[in-house]
């Protein structure tokens, strides 16, 4: 395990380097001059002169060659300085830090909701395979996985905020305001996890040791909870790590629609205004989080499943 951990950790910096370089290059390949956009934003309705644009380009360091810009950014990032926003002129790291709490709350709530629903429904669906519950669950999973999050988000707002007036449509600061965005964000991973658990449970329930347990006189419920569930949930560990990436990317849309002041909303605003330092900081920050989450999930899976350790040892 120790050697495995070292190997994985050793690869992380390389992956981060590739991700940050790729995102930096892609950002700068996108059409649009940040200097011109910033000037238009400072003086809406007015068209900035070429001289003013050139001056701001020089001030922001955008007139330097792209590799030089990247090296300067990377050297700053390594010392914790991710630059300053072109728009607000505030440190990017501070903005990311301040926006992290709302996003963590939202993604944690969405993940918890996804697990709370997906686990029991997936188990029930497998136990009642071919029945009405299974059919409804599979249909719901299909809709949840296929429907775009923005459509679900607007649907939830229209139903629960506009029509029923049960919940606020947007905002941040009270408990009720997290409910709709958390549901909107959770539906896709919930659907995926439910299908995963159902498939895994079906496979486990057909195995010999389950039949043996039943033959020994254990109740159906005792077999499921005491013998099948633990093994059936193993794939969930890996899927949770992957889903964290999905949740963070889904948060970009959901946070924008619900005006949730997290990283996703920051990212959308920054992308629209070509606020490169913020976008670059966001991409790198999220990459670190996702890579570490996947590493943690892999480690947990190896600890939980002895077969993975043995396979490795045989190699």
């Amino acid at each position, binding site marked *: 395990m120790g050697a495995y951990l070292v190997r994985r950790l050793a690869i992380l910096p390389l992956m981060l380097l590739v991700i940050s370089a790729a995102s930096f290059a892609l950002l700068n390949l*996108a*059409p*649009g*001059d940040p200097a*011109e*956009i910033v000037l*238009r*934003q400072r003086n809406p*309705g*007015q*068209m900035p*002169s070429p*001289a*003013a644009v050139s001056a701001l380009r020089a001030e922001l360091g955008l007139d330097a060659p792209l590799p030089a810009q990247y090296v300067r950014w990377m050297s700053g990032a390594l010392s914790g300085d991710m630059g300053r926003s072109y*728009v*607000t002129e*505030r440190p990017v790291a*501070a*903005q990311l830090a*301040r*926006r992290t*709490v*709302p996003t963590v709350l939202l993604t*944690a*709530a969405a993940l*918890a909701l996804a*697990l*709370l629903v997906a*686990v029991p429904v997936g188990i029930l669906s497998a136990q009642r395979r071919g029945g009405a519950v299974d059919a409804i669950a599979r249909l719901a999973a299909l809709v949840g996985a296929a429907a775009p999050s923005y459509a679900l988000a*607007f649907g939830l*707002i*229209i139903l629960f*905020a*506009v029509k029923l*007036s049960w919940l*606020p*449509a*947007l*905002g941040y*600061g*009270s*408990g*009720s*305001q*997290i409910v709709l965005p*958390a549901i909107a964000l959770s539906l896709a991973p919930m659907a995926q996890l439910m299908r995963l658990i159902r498939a895994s449970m079906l496979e486990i329930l057909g195995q010999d040791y389950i039949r043996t347990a039943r033959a020994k006189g254990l109740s159906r419920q005792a077999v499921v909870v005491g013998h099948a569930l*633990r093994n059936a*949930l*193993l794939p*969930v*560990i890996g899927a949770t790590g992957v889903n964290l990436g999905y949740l963070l990317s889904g948060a970009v849309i959901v946070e*924008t*629609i619900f*005006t949730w*002041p997290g990283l996703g909303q920051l990212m959308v*605003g920054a992308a629209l*205004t070509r606020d490169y330092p913020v976008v670059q900081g966001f991409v790198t920050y999220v990459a670190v989080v996702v890579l570490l989450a996947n590493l943690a999930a892999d480690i947990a899976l190896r*600890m*939980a499943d*002895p077969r993975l350790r043995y396979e490795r040892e045989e190699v």
Partner: protein
Amino acid sequence: MPNLLIQSITYIIPAAFALLLALAVACGAPAAAPENTPTSTAATMVPQQSPQATGTSEQPADPANVGERPILNAGVIWLDSPLDPVESGWVANQSGMSENLFRLSAANLSPEPWLATAAVQIDPLAWEITLRTDVRFHNGNAMDAQAVKASLERTIRLSPASAENLGIDTVSVKDGQTITVTTTDPRPTLPGLLTSPATAITDAAAADAAGEGNFIDAGALTGPYIPTEYVQKERLSSVANDDYWGGTPPLAGIEHLAIPDTNSRELALQAGDIDVAINISPNGAQAINSQPGMHSLTAGIGTSVVMWWVNFERGTLSDPLVLRAVAHAIDRKSIADLVAPEGTGSFAELLLPEALVSCPGVTAPGYDPDQARNLLAQAGYADSNGDGVLDKDGQPLEIVIGGYPERFRLPIMAEAAQAMLVGVGIQAEVRITEWTVVNEPEWDLFGWFNNVVETGDPVVNVSKYAGIRADASGSGANNYGHYDNSRLVDIVARAGNLSDIEQRKGIACDALAVVADESAFLPVAHVYMVYGVSDRVTGFEPHPTSLYFFDHRIGLAQ
């Protein structure tokens, strides 16, 4: 060990997340600390009240100051610019916090006194401006001639763009409430130039003393609302200025929430989370008007234009016959009805709206596909291979229609025009990318959305699109289509030292006739500012521009 771990993963983790969810729901998510606000401010969060209690928050920002008056919740598009006017000034102007010496009239879009009472041009290079006597900054200091002089000097010192626009040489105090402004060259529209949000009057000494990033502490503005907390791109809180010179606002304050997504803004109003939604879409207006308890409002004057730049350098449209044919082939009026239906905009025959300048008899090429076909035939185009696309010398007649997605009307316009051009044999490719692509040569028509009533001067607003200043100088900056403005320069030069607005309108009409005749731009619609408003909102008079959203009259019925 593995069993224990599996149990941890299978039971404890979901339980922990469930606990987290329950905590979040039960206790509420903690508020993030604002980035740039003083800790001593009366911090108020974004709207939290239940839909039924909208706008009547139980906890106003400063109970001692605001009594039982309600707080109005507003959903705005962006809260981007800093509050200090010299750093832009738009947000402070829009939210009723800052004021200028002059403002644009809601009726005719001409400059009218605001913190000033009158302006007289005493010679081509000098203006005498008289000030109101009853104005105080939010910090209690009086706004007198000395303060206004200091404010204008600060603007010139800290805002190079404003310094260039204003051309101010000196500001001197004539008496307690009168200043004399001299300019380096004639500025016949100085009152109009002083409507720019960047020239809002501030207590310069207090603003400078507060230091960078602490402008909110200075109390340096004069408007009916005092900013108390500002988190750029998120929210802006204010309390009423009870000493406001125009009268005490009926509100305790206004909470502005940045809701960039138009659909979300409209739904927030429909859900009762906000009382006013700024700038809603035509579809949103329809939905809001069909729902009890709310309605849409507009001043009914289009102060922005959606149009196409014409690229005169790319070859295809540099041929006047082809350009004329394109102008005849696109039914701009039908497209205007599509993108700015009744109540949200009007057809733009000319670049500038009639409210700014009316030019009877001046027209642009109208929709006439037969005439378009004739012109293309005269230009030597024919469908030689029968594929429906005209060609010449083996080259098909193709154009690129560019635009950007942030203004939802532009992609619709482009697709409608594409379909119309096919009807006369022109193949059009739509490329919706990004607005600064207008600087690149890869387009023939480029969709654009912009203010056309800046400073209230029609000459300025027609000149700027042709890359010339209102005094006819300029080197082609912002002439994105590389339009040959030589005919226009002579006309605009006549405005040189004229301060009479009617004479300037006559000159603007002459200029508009030239650009319409040469199809220098293809205007489509003048777009209104449309607001979604709860029926409980009182005293709200929408201004046609996006310069002023709220004043001291707006209130909220309990």
